[in-house]
Protein backbone atom coordinates (compact mmCIF):
# COMPACT_ATOMS: atom_id res chain seq x y z
CA UNK A 1 0.00 0.00 0.00
CA UNK A 2 1.51 3.29 -1.04
CA UNK A 3 1.12 6.54 0.76
CA UNK A 4 1.44 10.12 -0.38
CA UNK A 5 3.75 12.14 1.85
CA UNK A 6 3.66 15.90 1.60
CA UNK A 7 6.98 17.51 2.56
CA UNK A 8 8.40 20.98 2.83
CA UNK A 9 12.13 21.59 2.39
CA UNK A 10 13.28 24.84 3.98
CA UNK A 11 16.56 26.13 2.57
CA UNK A 12 18.50 28.95 4.25
CA UNK A 13 21.91 30.55 3.70
CA UNK A 14 24.45 29.09 6.13
CA UNK A 15 25.32 31.11 9.20
CA UNK A 16 28.04 33.58 8.32
CA UNK A 17 27.33 33.55 4.58
CA UNK A 18 26.68 36.97 3.12
CA UNK A 19 22.92 37.31 2.64
CA UNK A 20 22.33 40.59 0.81
CA UNK A 21 18.59 39.87 0.52
CA UNK A 22 18.32 39.49 4.27
CA UNK A 23 20.25 42.71 4.76
CA UNK A 24 18.00 44.54 2.32
CA UNK A 25 14.90 43.36 4.17
CA UNK A 26 16.46 44.41 7.45
CA UNK A 27 17.36 47.78 5.99
CA UNK A 28 13.76 48.41 4.98
CA UNK A 29 12.35 47.86 8.48
CA UNK A 30 13.07 51.44 9.48
CA UNK A 31 10.77 52.67 6.72
CA UNK A 32 7.95 50.66 8.30
CA UNK A 33 8.65 52.14 11.71
CA UNK A 34 9.56 48.70 13.06
CA UNK A 35 12.30 48.34 15.65
CA UNK A 36 13.94 45.43 17.44
CA UNK A 37 14.16 43.06 14.45
CA UNK A 38 17.56 41.67 13.54
CA UNK A 39 19.40 38.78 11.87
CA UNK A 40 16.98 38.50 8.93
CA UNK A 41 17.87 35.60 6.61
CA UNK A 42 16.09 35.01 3.32
CA UNK A 43 15.86 31.48 1.93
CA UNK A 44 13.37 29.44 0.00
CA UNK A 45 10.75 26.82 0.75
CA UNK A 46 9.96 23.97 -1.60
CA UNK A 47 6.88 21.77 -1.05
CA UNK A 48 6.51 18.43 -2.76
CA UNK A 49 4.64 15.13 -2.61
CA UNK A 50 6.42 11.78 -2.53
CA UNK A 51 4.58 8.52 -3.12
CA UNK A 52 6.29 5.73 -1.20
CA UNK A 53 5.59 2.61 0.84
CA UNK A 54 6.63 4.15 4.13
CA UNK A 55 7.86 7.25 5.87
CA UNK A 56 11.52 6.18 5.80
CA UNK A 57 11.53 5.60 2.06
CA UNK A 58 9.83 8.91 1.38
CA UNK A 59 12.28 10.76 3.63
CA UNK A 60 15.29 9.16 1.93
CA UNK A 61 14.05 10.48 -1.42
CA UNK A 62 13.48 13.97 -0.05
CA UNK A 63 16.85 14.05 1.73
CA UNK A 64 18.64 13.14 -1.49
CA UNK A 65 16.71 15.74 -3.46
CA UNK A 66 17.33 18.39 -0.81
CA UNK A 67 21.06 17.70 -0.58
CA UNK A 68 21.81 17.33 -4.28
CA UNK A 69 19.42 19.73 -5.98
CA UNK A 70 17.38 21.99 -3.73
CA UNK A 71 20.34 23.23 -1.68
CA UNK A 72 24.03 23.86 -2.30
CA UNK A 73 25.86 22.41 0.72
CA UNK A 74 28.69 24.94 0.33
CA UNK A 75 26.45 27.88 1.08
CA UNK A 76 23.10 26.62 2.35
CA UNK A 77 21.50 24.38 4.96
CA UNK A 78 18.13 22.71 4.70
CA UNK A 79 15.49 21.28 6.99
CA UNK A 80 12.98 18.66 5.88
CA UNK A 81 9.50 18.94 7.34
CA UNK A 82 6.77 16.30 6.89
CA UNK A 83 3.47 18.13 6.46
CA UNK A 84 0.96 15.39 5.83
CA UNK A 85 0.63 11.71 4.97
CA UNK A 86 -2.30 10.44 2.94
CA UNK A 87 -2.68 6.70 2.53
CA UNK A 88 -4.85 5.24 -0.22
CA UNK A 89 -7.23 3.62 2.27
CA UNK A 90 -7.32 5.92 5.27
CA UNK A 91 -8.21 9.57 5.35
CA UNK A 92 -5.84 12.48 5.54
CA UNK A 93 -3.81 12.71 8.72
CA UNK A 94 -2.34 16.16 9.12
CA UNK A 95 0.71 16.34 11.34
CA UNK A 96 0.69 18.33 14.52
CA UNK A 97 2.59 21.59 13.97
CA UNK A 98 6.29 20.99 14.23
CA UNK A 99 5.90 17.23 14.70
CA UNK A 100 7.68 16.33 11.48
CA UNK A 101 10.57 18.78 11.65
CA UNK A 102 13.92 17.11 11.32
CA UNK A 103 17.34 18.24 10.22
Amino acid at each position, binding site marked *: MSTEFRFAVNVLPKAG*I*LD*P*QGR*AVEGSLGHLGIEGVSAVRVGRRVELTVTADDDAGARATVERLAGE*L*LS*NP*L*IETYRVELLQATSSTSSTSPMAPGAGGRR
Partner: protein
Amino acid sequence: MSVRVGVVVFPGSNCDRDTTHALALAGAEPVELWHEQASLEGVAGVILPGGFAYGDYLRAGVIARFSPVMRSVAAFAAEGGLVLGICNGFQVLAEAGLVPGALLRNRGLRFLGRDVRIAVEVPGSPFTRLAGPRRPLRMPVAHGEGCYFADEATLDALEADGRVLFRYVRADGSVAAEADDPANPNGSLRAIAGVRNEAGNVAGLMPHPERASEGLLGSDDGFGLVRSFVESAAAAAARGTPVLAR
Protein backbone atom coordinates in the same frame (compact mmCIF):
# COMPACT_ATOMS: atom_id res chain seq x y z
CA MET B 1 43.10 21.82 -39.90
CA SER B 2 41.61 23.97 -37.28
CA VAL B 3 40.92 22.64 -33.83
CA ARG B 4 37.34 21.71 -32.91
CA VAL B 5 36.06 23.46 -29.79
CA GLY B 6 32.64 22.66 -28.35
CA VAL B 7 30.21 25.31 -27.15
CA VAL B 8 27.42 23.89 -25.01
CA VAL B 9 23.96 25.26 -25.71
CA PHE B 10 21.46 25.03 -22.86
CA PRO B 11 17.91 26.31 -23.13
CA GLY B 12 18.48 29.91 -22.03
CA SER B 13 22.11 30.21 -23.14
CA ASN B 14 22.50 33.56 -24.86
CA CYS B 15 26.25 34.00 -25.40
CA ASP B 16 26.71 30.83 -27.44
CA ARG B 17 26.74 32.73 -30.75
CA ASP B 18 29.16 35.35 -29.42
CA THR B 19 31.40 32.53 -28.25
CA THR B 20 31.34 30.59 -31.53
CA HIS B 21 32.05 33.87 -33.37
CA ALA B 22 35.06 34.66 -31.18
CA LEU B 23 36.34 31.07 -31.48
CA ALA B 24 36.13 31.25 -35.28
CA LEU B 25 38.00 34.58 -35.22
CA ALA B 26 40.72 32.81 -33.22
CA GLY B 27 40.97 30.11 -35.89
CA ALA B 28 39.00 27.33 -34.23
CA GLU B 29 36.13 25.33 -35.62
CA PRO B 30 33.28 25.86 -33.16
CA VAL B 31 30.94 22.91 -32.59
CA GLU B 32 27.60 23.57 -30.88
CA LEU B 33 26.74 20.87 -28.34
CA TRP B 34 23.03 20.67 -27.46
CA HIS B 35 22.29 20.08 -23.77
CA GLU B 36 20.38 16.85 -24.43
CA GLN B 37 23.20 15.16 -26.30
CA ALA B 38 25.76 13.05 -24.51
CA SER B 39 28.30 13.11 -27.34
CA LEU B 40 30.99 15.77 -27.29
CA GLU B 41 31.69 14.99 -30.96
CA GLY B 42 35.41 14.63 -30.51
CA VAL B 43 36.11 18.26 -29.59
CA ALA B 44 39.45 19.19 -28.02
CA GLY B 45 37.97 21.66 -25.53
CA VAL B 46 34.57 22.72 -24.24
CA ILE B 47 33.25 26.18 -23.39
CA LEU B 48 30.11 26.68 -21.30
CA PRO B 49 28.82 30.07 -22.45
CA GLY B 50 26.91 32.78 -20.64
CA GLY B 51 23.16 33.09 -20.39
CA PHE B 52 20.42 31.84 -18.12
CA ALA B 53 20.52 28.06 -18.48
CA TYR B 54 17.11 26.58 -17.66
CA GLY B 55 15.96 30.05 -16.67
CA ASP B 56 18.36 30.12 -13.70
CA TYR B 57 15.50 28.58 -11.72
CA LEU B 58 16.26 27.38 -8.18
CA ARG B 59 19.91 28.54 -8.33
CA ALA B 60 21.88 29.74 -11.32
CA GLY B 61 23.50 26.73 -12.98
CA VAL B 62 22.11 23.96 -10.81
CA ILE B 63 19.59 22.41 -13.20
CA ALA B 64 22.06 22.56 -16.11
CA ARG B 65 24.41 20.50 -13.98
CA PHE B 66 22.18 17.43 -14.36
CA SER B 67 21.84 17.59 -18.16
CA PRO B 68 23.18 14.73 -20.33
CA VAL B 69 25.86 16.94 -21.90
CA MET B 70 27.20 17.92 -18.46
CA ARG B 71 27.75 14.29 -17.49
CA SER B 72 29.95 14.00 -20.56
CA VAL B 73 31.68 17.31 -19.81
CA ALA B 74 32.42 16.08 -16.27
CA ALA B 75 33.93 12.86 -17.67
CA PHE B 76 35.91 14.88 -20.24
CA ALA B 77 37.22 17.14 -17.45
CA ALA B 78 38.14 14.15 -15.29
CA GLU B 79 40.34 12.86 -18.12
CA GLY B 80 42.13 16.19 -18.39
CA GLY B 81 40.02 17.85 -21.09
CA LEU B 82 40.06 21.64 -21.24
CA VAL B 83 36.84 23.23 -20.01
CA LEU B 84 36.09 26.93 -19.60
CA GLY B 85 32.90 28.37 -18.09
CA ILE B 86 32.05 31.98 -18.78
CA CYS B 87 29.55 33.79 -16.53
CA ASN B 88 26.56 31.40 -16.37
CA GLY B 89 28.98 28.69 -17.52
CA PHE B 90 31.11 29.44 -14.43
CA GLN B 91 27.98 29.09 -12.28
CA VAL B 92 27.25 25.71 -13.89
CA LEU B 93 30.83 24.50 -13.25
CA ALA B 94 30.65 25.64 -9.62
CA GLU B 95 27.30 23.92 -9.05
CA ALA B 96 28.72 20.76 -10.65
CA GLY B 97 31.71 20.90 -8.31
CA LEU B 98 34.13 21.05 -11.25
CA VAL B 99 35.63 24.29 -9.92
CA PRO B 100 35.74 25.28 -6.24
CA GLY B 101 33.38 27.76 -4.59
CA ALA B 102 29.97 29.21 -5.31
CA LEU B 103 28.55 32.33 -6.92
CA LEU B 104 26.23 34.24 -4.61
CA ARG B 105 23.79 37.04 -5.30
CA ASN B 106 25.65 40.26 -6.06
CA ARG B 107 26.38 42.16 -2.87
CA GLY B 108 24.46 45.16 -4.22
CA LEU B 109 21.51 42.86 -5.16
CA ARG B 110 21.32 44.33 -8.67
CA PHE B 111 21.96 42.68 -12.01
CA LEU B 112 25.02 44.43 -13.46
CA GLY B 113 25.87 44.87 -17.11
CA ARG B 114 28.94 47.02 -17.59
CA ASP B 115 32.67 46.92 -18.23
CA VAL B 116 35.08 45.84 -15.50
CA ARG B 117 38.82 45.44 -15.33
CA ILE B 118 40.52 42.22 -14.38
CA ALA B 119 44.13 41.23 -13.82
CA VAL B 120 45.55 37.94 -14.99
CA GLU B 121 46.99 36.31 -11.87
CA VAL B 122 48.48 33.23 -13.54
CA PRO B 123 49.93 34.27 -16.92
CA GLY B 124 51.20 30.82 -17.92
CA SER B 125 47.99 28.81 -17.61
CA PRO B 126 46.27 27.16 -20.60
CA PHE B 127 43.56 29.82 -20.27
CA THR B 128 45.83 32.88 -20.09
CA ARG B 129 49.06 32.09 -21.95
CA LEU B 130 48.30 34.54 -24.78
CA ALA B 131 46.65 37.20 -22.62
CA GLY B 132 49.37 39.67 -23.49
CA PRO B 133 51.47 41.95 -21.33
CA ARG B 134 50.39 42.24 -17.70
CA ARG B 135 47.86 45.04 -17.51
CA PRO B 136 44.21 45.25 -16.52
CA LEU B 137 41.99 43.70 -19.18
CA ARG B 138 38.73 45.55 -19.84
CA MET B 139 35.67 43.46 -20.65
CA PRO B 140 31.98 43.37 -19.73
CA VAL B 141 30.16 41.60 -16.94
CA ALA B 142 26.43 40.84 -17.12
CA HIS B 143 25.15 38.95 -14.11
CA GLY B 144 23.05 38.99 -10.97
CA GLU B 145 24.84 36.20 -9.11
CA GLY B 146 28.58 36.70 -9.42
CA CYS B 147 29.79 37.21 -5.87
CA TYR B 148 32.52 34.59 -5.54
CA PHE B 149 32.39 32.69 -2.26
CA ALA B 150 34.46 29.94 -0.69
CA ASP B 151 35.40 29.39 2.93
CA GLU B 152 38.59 30.95 4.24
CA ALA B 153 40.59 27.72 4.15
CA THR B 154 39.62 27.13 0.51
CA LEU B 155 40.47 30.73 -0.43
CA ASP B 156 43.90 30.39 1.20
CA ALA B 157 44.52 27.12 -0.64
CA LEU B 158 43.44 28.61 -3.97
CA GLU B 159 45.86 31.49 -3.55
CA ALA B 160 48.71 29.27 -2.38
CA ASP B 161 48.25 26.90 -5.33
CA GLY B 162 47.98 29.59 -8.01
CA ARG B 163 44.37 28.69 -8.72
CA VAL B 164 43.02 32.23 -8.63
CA LEU B 165 43.23 33.06 -12.34
CA PHE B 166 41.63 36.52 -12.40
CA ARG B 167 40.92 39.32 -9.96
CA TYR B 168 38.90 42.51 -10.27
CA VAL B 169 41.22 45.50 -10.28
CA ARG B 170 40.97 49.27 -10.50
CA ALA B 171 42.14 51.21 -13.55
CA ASP B 172 45.59 51.60 -11.99
CA GLY B 173 45.88 47.82 -11.60
CA SER B 174 45.46 47.72 -7.81
CA VAL B 175 43.27 44.91 -6.49
CA ALA B 176 39.69 45.96 -5.75
CA ALA B 177 38.28 45.83 -2.22
CA GLU B 178 35.60 43.27 -1.29
CA ALA B 179 32.91 45.80 -0.37
CA ASP B 180 31.96 49.29 -1.49
CA ASP B 181 34.37 49.35 -4.39
CA PRO B 182 32.86 49.83 -7.87
CA ALA B 183 35.88 48.01 -9.32
CA ASN B 184 34.59 44.80 -7.67
CA PRO B 185 31.15 44.68 -9.30
CA ASN B 186 29.58 41.94 -7.20
CA GLY B 187 31.51 41.97 -3.92
CA SER B 188 33.49 38.81 -4.64
CA LEU B 189 35.68 37.62 -1.78
CA ARG B 190 39.30 38.66 -2.31
CA ALA B 191 38.10 40.28 -5.57
CA ILE B 192 38.19 36.89 -7.30
CA ALA B 193 36.82 37.01 -10.85
CA GLY B 194 37.95 33.56 -11.99
CA VAL B 195 39.41 30.31 -10.64
CA ARG B 196 40.55 26.94 -11.88
CA ASN B 197 40.38 23.41 -10.52
CA GLU B 198 43.21 21.57 -8.80
CA ALA B 199 44.38 19.77 -11.95
CA GLY B 200 44.39 23.09 -13.81
CA ASN B 201 42.30 22.03 -16.81
CA VAL B 202 38.93 23.48 -15.77
CA ALA B 203 38.41 27.21 -15.26
CA GLY B 204 35.57 29.66 -14.81
CA LEU B 205 35.25 33.42 -14.81
CA MET B 206 32.37 35.87 -14.53
CA PRO B 207 33.49 38.52 -17.07
CA HIS B 208 32.96 37.93 -20.80
CA PRO B 209 36.18 37.72 -22.86
CA GLU B 210 34.18 36.67 -25.95
CA ARG B 211 32.28 39.95 -25.82
CA ALA B 212 35.56 41.87 -25.86
CA SER B 213 37.22 40.11 -28.78
CA GLU B 214 37.15 42.76 -31.52
CA GLY B 215 37.84 46.48 -31.59
CA LEU B 216 34.35 46.92 -33.02
CA LEU B 217 32.92 45.80 -29.67
CA GLY B 218 34.78 48.51 -27.78
CA SER B 219 37.54 46.27 -26.45
CA ASP B 220 39.58 43.37 -27.74
CA ASP B 221 41.23 42.76 -24.37
CA GLY B 222 39.43 39.43 -24.05
CA PHE B 223 40.62 38.02 -27.35
CA GLY B 224 43.93 36.89 -25.85
CA LEU B 225 41.97 34.63 -23.48
CA VAL B 226 39.95 33.15 -26.36
CA ARG B 227 43.17 32.60 -28.33
CA SER B 228 44.80 31.00 -25.27
CA PHE B 229 41.98 28.48 -25.04
CA VAL B 230 42.10 27.70 -28.77
CA GLU B 231 45.88 27.24 -28.76
CA SER B 232 45.77 25.05 -25.64
CA ALA B 233 42.99 22.94 -27.17
CA ALA B 234 45.02 22.61 -30.39
CA ALA B 235 48.04 21.47 -28.36
CA ALA B 236 45.86 18.88 -26.58
CA ALA B 237 44.51 17.69 -29.93
CA ALA B 238 48.03 17.40 -31.31
CA ARG B 239 48.97 15.20 -28.35
CA GLY B 240 45.98 13.02 -29.21
CA THR B 241 44.69 13.26 -25.69
CA PRO B 242 42.45 14.03 -23.93
CA VAL B 243 40.27 14.43 -27.01
CA LEU B 244 37.61 11.84 -26.42
CA ALA B 245 35.75 9.98 -29.11
CA ARG B 246 32.35 10.13 -27.42
